[in-house]
């Protein structure tokens, strides 16, 4: 399937549908059978990033731009096509997530999955650990963060350029072993 036609079809799509503004549950799937609540956003520093995400799944690659703003109790994520066409905007404030889905592209992970991956990447592990299933662990090791299930299998592997510190690290790669996709992340700043 030619990805470009989705980017380009925005012109048509915008004619046919209005933006969908809807609250979604602050939860995410870790595997096909394991769902957990997302932590409420809480940041003790301002975080901003613009990234080019390249998804690899089933031998195909699809790219997406994300813009991320995080401060205090608010996290905003905007997804754009590589041509700059807005695909979605997520605002997570307090306990409420509002998603504005402008264009849906089936080749890309859902907006909520992207939000989840971002939160796994940038939130302190202390905010995640209480929400994980019994026996699961989120571990920071040097330039890596691992989500490990109760059978000690790696579910998600996140890579960074820096070791852990008090500053939020920007991820460079996310690999989801259960869902089978990988995201290469290039910072655009």
């Amino acid at each position, binding site marked *: 399937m*030619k*990805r*470009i*036609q989705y*980017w*380009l*079809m*925005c*012109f*048509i799509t*915008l*004619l046919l549908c209005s*933006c969908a503004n809807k609250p979604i549950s602050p939860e995410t799937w870790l595997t096909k059978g394991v769902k957990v609540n997302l932590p409420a956003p809480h940041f003790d520093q301002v975080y*901003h990033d*613009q990234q*080019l995400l*390249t998804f690899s799944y089933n031998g195909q*690659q699809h*790219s997406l*731009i994300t*813009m991320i*703003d995080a401060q205090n109790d608010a996290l*905003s994520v*905007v997804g*754009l*096509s*590589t*041509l*700059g*066409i*807005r695909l979605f*905007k997520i*605002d997570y404030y307090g306990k409420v997530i509002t998603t504005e889905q*402008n264009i849906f592209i089936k080749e890309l992970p859902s907006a909520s999955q992207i939000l989840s991956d971002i939160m796994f990447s940038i939130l302190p592990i202390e905010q995640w650990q209480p929400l994980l299933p019994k026996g699961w662990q989120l571990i920071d090791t040097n330039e890596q963060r691992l989500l490990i299930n109760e059978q000690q299998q790696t579910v998600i592997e996140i890579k960074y350029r820096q070791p852990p510190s008090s500053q939020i690290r920007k991820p460079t790669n996310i690999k989801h072993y259960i869902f089978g996709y990988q995201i290469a992340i*290039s910072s*655009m*700043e």
Partner: protein
Amino acid sequence: MKNFLILCFILPSIFFVSNGQAITLDELQQKFSQYPVTRANFTQDRYIQGMNKPLHSTGRMIISQHHGLWWQQLTPFALTLKMNDQRMQQIIGQQPPQIIRADEQPQLFQFNTLLAAIFNADKITLEKNFQLNLSDSDNAQKWQLILIPKMAPLNKIFHKITLIGDQYLLQITIDDKQNDKTLIVFTDHQTLPLTENEKHLFD
């Protein structure tokens, strides 16, 4: 969105205008097809409502009346878009090219054709689809053309499109219905004919 790509594709003729008295749409039209090739560098800032920083990109582009648009984004990542009335091709970094042909997406190209007709200074089409506000500065060195869509599909996408130019098109501002804003500034214009190497860029 980069609707401006469409605009640029269909804007070659608007790159030149006269420096005479108060500019009229007719004068713009008369100048529209004089220069078959225009090159320029561009900077683009995409302001998303609610986000702190714009998405900033830079690159260069060539518009040829015969060959179409070649748009090369250099930063923050490499992206090349080639577009004519038959096909569009996008290349990101080292990834394989992605191509869409007019016969595969006739709706899309119909839409492109509509915009092309508008910006090729078809005065009738322009006035039919847009509320127009053409003005120039006191010394007539610069002009501004504000396009406010009057009907679908354009009025579902844009609040307004503002073009500013002097001898060349200098700036495009797109205010869209999502309350996002895109500002593209063109510099270092050149109008020499395409070189052989440049012609191959459109292949």
